[in-house]
């Protein structure tokens, strides 16, 4: 095995001559694989070279060059940098083999790329639209797709800038004049298909159920309006009695095409926009995006900024996990009491965010090469008090009240089990992965910023059930407090931003994938620059979105009530899931 692990990246091109070549474009890395060899190469990567974790799949539409690219980021769960594969395919007939058979975690990401970019993944078991609705015309992330009220390709729009005489193009251009219907489409005759494809795929499962007693199944739609789907998420559940036989998540109710808007925005305009992804942990979102763009720009923030970033990211993790634990308990039917106890601490953390960033939830605190503001007076003491005094005590208290509660254990232990193999295969990340016994934490496995300086343990538990996910979150809060204590102790003086603050940054052409260990899992930003003020491609690898891939596997065979607990234990946020 060790020899195989040593196989360096250059080997891949030599191993598959004519099929794989290095990506020689300036600012790019990885390999370009011929479409017909992709499965073979991926199999080699997974089985021989140890790249068992398919982190991200997305596509890029290179309109000027006339092709599309499907981009894959592979990692080893033992740690180390990424291996990037790309498959190029013509725009008018974009077909790429599906990797779902090798990496089940590719399922939703491939559906997303099909939905938004129109790359057809051959061999995908259930290639339906995922974020847009069935019947939507076109694929919105293609560069030649234009929205109603389209103005320009990139902001700032001339209509709103400069001199402040704003007019909105929608005022000048009534709605129906701006809508293109496909040639054979008559809106008056159109009827919604009422999820026919979805129910068909459930009916297929229904027919395969075998049972000795003749039982009847019932399909229940949990959501989109449902108190415990954490937003407008919908699960279509096939029930036999109260036991789940199949489950299909349906999402996109909160879809706003974050990525398309992001590609219209300038680089710095996207910073506050990332806040809206996982709105419970905006600092981590900032962090990931800043890392990706800094990679492209080739700059590093000064010491003090690095420390501040780590401090904010860890506070975010604590507040997010408190929220996650609180709402998990709510999902178990505790009437808001644990939730409100957990939120009390979160409020204090948000106080700090408000003091440094000016906003409690939409922080917009990071800048390329640093952070926006230094600590105001008195905040450092507040943070010290929280990290050294209050939080450790309150976490112990939470632990004391919740961890050994009989009902909680009865509801959580052995429920929604995900084995380590499954967790890796489904590209699960964050607490979901670590509760399944895979000690994979990006802060350790592929350190970014200054995480290599701190002493902390990667929280890991081995049963892979809801209870362990809860425990992992509790452990992670404790580890975050440890990191905070070290960071606060060592926080140096100095500048907080490399260079001058600027509204417009110059980003050289190239691609970069910046990823951080966000509270919910691996948060990755894949940014492609073509040298203009706006990103050519801006893709978010959202942990909630990828983690939800494993939901059906976890839910099968459990009771309806458990589905809610399992969903709660994944800890999703719809702002990030639907984007």
């Amino acid at each position, binding site marked *: 095995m060790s020899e195989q692990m040593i196989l360096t990246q250059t080997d891949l091109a030599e191993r598959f001559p004519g099929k794989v070549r290095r990506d020689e474009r300036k600012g790019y890395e990885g390999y370009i694989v011929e479409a017909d060899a992709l499965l073979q190469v991926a199999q080699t990567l997974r089985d021989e070279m140890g790249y068992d974790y398919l982190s991200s799949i997305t596509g890029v539409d290179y309109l000027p060059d006339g092709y599309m690219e499907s981009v894959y980021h592979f990692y080893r769960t033992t740690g180390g940098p990424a291996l990037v594969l790309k498959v190029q395919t013509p725009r008018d007939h974009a077909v790429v083999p599906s990797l779902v058979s090798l990496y089940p975690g590719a399922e939703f990401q491939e559906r997303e790329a099909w939905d938004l970019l129109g790359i057809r993944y051959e061999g995908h078991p259930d290639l339906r639209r995922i974020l847009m609705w069935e019947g939507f015309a076109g694929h919105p992330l293609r560069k030649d797709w234009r929205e109603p009220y389209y103005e320009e390709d990139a902001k700032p729009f001339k209509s709103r800038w400069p001199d402040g005489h704003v007019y909105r193009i929608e005022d000048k251009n009534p709605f129906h004049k701006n809508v293109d219907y496909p040639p054979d489409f008559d809106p008056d005759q159109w009827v919604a298909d009422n999820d026919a494809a979805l129910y068909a795929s459930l009916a297929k499962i229904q027919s395969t159920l075998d049972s000795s007693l003749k039982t009847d199944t019932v399909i229940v739609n949990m959501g989109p309006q449902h108190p415990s789907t954490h937003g407008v998420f919908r699960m279509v559940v096939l029930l036999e009695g109260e036991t789940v036989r199949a489950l299909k998540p349906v999402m996109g109710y909160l879809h706003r095409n974050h990525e398309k808007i992001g590609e219209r925005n300038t680089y710095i305009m996207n910073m506050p926009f990332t806040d809206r992804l996982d709105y419970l942990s905006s600092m981590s979102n900032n962090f990931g995006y800043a890392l990706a763009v800094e990679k492209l720009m080739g700059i590093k923030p000064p010491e003090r900024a690095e420390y501040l970033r780590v401090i904010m990211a860890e506070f975010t993790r604590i507040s997010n996990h408190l929220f996650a634990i609180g709402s998990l308990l709510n999902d178990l039917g505790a009437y808001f009491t644990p939730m409100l106890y957990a939120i009390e601490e979160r409020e204090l953390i948000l106080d700090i965010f408000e003091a440094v960033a000016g906003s409690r939830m939409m922080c917009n605190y990071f800048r390329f090469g640093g952070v926006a503001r230094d600590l105001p007076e008195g905040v450092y003491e507040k943070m010290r008090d929280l990290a050294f005094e209050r939080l450790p005590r309150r976490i112990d208290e939470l632990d004391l009240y919740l961890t050994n509660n009989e009902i909680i*254990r009865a509801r959580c232990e052995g429920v929604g089990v995900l084995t380590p193999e499954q967790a890796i295969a489904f590209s699960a990340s964050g607490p979901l992965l670590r509760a399944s016994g895979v000690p994979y934490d990006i802060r350790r496995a592929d350190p970014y910023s200054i995480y290599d300086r701190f002493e902390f343990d990667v929280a890991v538990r081995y049963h892979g059930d809801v209870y362990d996910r809860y425990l992992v979150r509790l452990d992670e809060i404790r580890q975050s407090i440890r990191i905070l204590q070290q960071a606060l102790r060592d926080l140096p003086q100095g500048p907080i931003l490399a260079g001058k603050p600027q509204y417009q940054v110059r980003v050289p052409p190239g691609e970069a994938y910046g990823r951080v260990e966000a509270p919910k899992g691996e948060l990755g930003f894949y940014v492609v620059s073509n040298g203009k003020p706006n990103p050519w491609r801006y893709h978010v690898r959202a942990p909630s979105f990828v983690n939800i891939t494993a939901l059906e596997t976890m839910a099968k065979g459990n009771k309806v009530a458990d589905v809610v607990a399992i969903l709660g234990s994944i800890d999703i946020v719809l702002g990030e899931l639907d984007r």
Partner: protein
Amino acid sequence: MDWASLAEWTLKSFALIFALLGGFAYLTLFERKLIARFQVRIGPNRAGPFGLLQPVADGIKLIFKEELIPAQADKIIFILAPIITVVPALVIMAVVPFGPPIQLFGRTISLQIIDLNVGVLYIMAIASVSVYGIVLAGWSSNNKYATLGGIRSSAQMISYELALGLAFTGPVLLTSSLSLAEIVEAQRHIWFVLYQPVGAFIFWISTLAEVNRAPFDMPEAEQELTAGYHTEYSGMKFALFFMAEYIKMIAVSAIAVTLFFGGYRGPFVDQVPLLGPIYFLLKVVGFLFLMVWVRATLPRIRYDRLMAFGWKVLFSLALGNAMLTALGVLLADMFQNSLWLWSIPVTTIAFFLLVAYLMRGSIAGGNR
């Protein structure tokens, strides 16, 4: 049957119903205030001083809300169901004595609507039909959540009624009467909870299940079934379900007080009969506080675990408790010495511990 006693009955019935309705209204406020305190909040304090007008505001809001009837619902039963739910809740209190007989206008008026000689059985009968409203509401809404809630509640009721019925036998055996007035009278010197600690415990748990209170609020489990059987109800019809739930809370607390905690008995009741209702009220409020406390504290048990708990633990405990109580009463009879009654708590607690030991892990423990 003279006119005076007819008038007395009528007046007492009206008084009881109004007391229950008022109790319902202020119980909601009581619960909201209490839960708020448990959760480090303040709770309703806008309508009136200390939020005292909040129930009125809620009532007005609910009356003026639009009432929707789903198109595919079974309209007759859909409208009937809330009524069927409320009526048993209101009439179940008829046999519970609130205080000792008092002298008024030269008549002896017993503070009880009617002293049935089968009062305990009456409570059982009403409790057993009270589930219909919920079941029918669930079925007639033509909504899957509602149907699941209805099915759950029927199964739950049947399961916990057994333990409940067996828990009733304790006080009945000790008094050798099914009349609630006599049961209270028998507790003149000692509350039955001392003879029947396990029985009272079983009674308490199974009533929580009977009135669908947390942690047994399966039929309306918000997290799974949105609102369970009353998902489709709005306006006053919804309020009726709400009312039934809270009146049932009051009723079962009153019954628990009557059976196990001496009813209206307390110091100086014989001298000042009007103290009786006050003691009774205080005890009932104590039980209501317990119910709210449990709701603020515990998560919900999963449905299959709930059934397993009801059948495997509670039912066997209740059977054993009934048998050991009978044994104790028999021994006391045989030796003509009421000290033998003290064998009941000893043996039943031992039995309780044995069952708890045997069942450890099988209900609450995880399945990994």
